[in-house]
């Protein structure tokens, strides 16, 4: 059960990273800007996901 949960969390991290990278790649051309934009989006994405996870956890106690 724990491994299935970890697999889902790992998938969230990977998929959000890939999405952020491709969107940044589509918009920009300079590798440094692409990297910076990817990280910015990824951190926002994961932060928001964490916020939602905490809210769901608190509401389902």
């Amino acid at each position, binding site marked *: 059960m724990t491994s*299935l949960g970890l*697999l*889902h969390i790992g*998938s969230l991290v*990977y*998929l959000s990273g*890939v*999405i952020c*990278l*491709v*969107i940044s*790649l*589509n*918009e*920009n*051309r*300079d*590798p*440094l800007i692409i990297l910076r934009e990817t990280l910015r989006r990824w951190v926002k994405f994961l932060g928001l996901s964490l916020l939602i996870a905490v809210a769901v956890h608190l509401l389902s106690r």
Partner: protein
Amino acid sequence: MQVDKAAAAGLDRATALEGAMLSTTGMRSSTPAIAAQGPLGWLGLFIGWMIPGAGFLIWGRWVRGLTCFFLIHLTFGLGLVLHSGVAWPSWSFRSEEFNLINNFTFIVQMGTGLPALASFLASQWVQEPGAGLAWLAGAPKHPHYELGSYFLIVAGALNYFVVGNFYDRLVRPRPPFTAQERPEGAPSA
């Protein structure tokens, strides 16, 4: 009038600055861009849909094309590793199996092009779980099947984005991309 001239000069300076930045990083193609307009552009779109990243590769955008190729195929492959596959949904409103989410899922998953088509055909032809192409067809009863479907959805959606970006950059260039796609040394106007 003077304001217009000043704005145009400012735009030129910004474009020149961007061009200088890009040329130092090697992301801009040093060869003149081949016009991807007309039938060639549509052919590039189709090829880019069928083989993710191939549209950019054909037009000499190696880094962009290879990155998209690798990322989308890796994501699709991970979906297959999780025992998922592209399945044909029911399209009849009267059917008990009809579910609009499954229909949208199928449409988005098909965005990966040939890999998705191969998985879809395998799911139609492979009847036994242990058969030769069963890994391509997926196992709907496997506990990771649904999670793998997300990987296939993301792979398909990303390729739609990439094909859309190919259109915006090369088929009918839009203002944010015209400066990025201009060959080195070409005039900005």
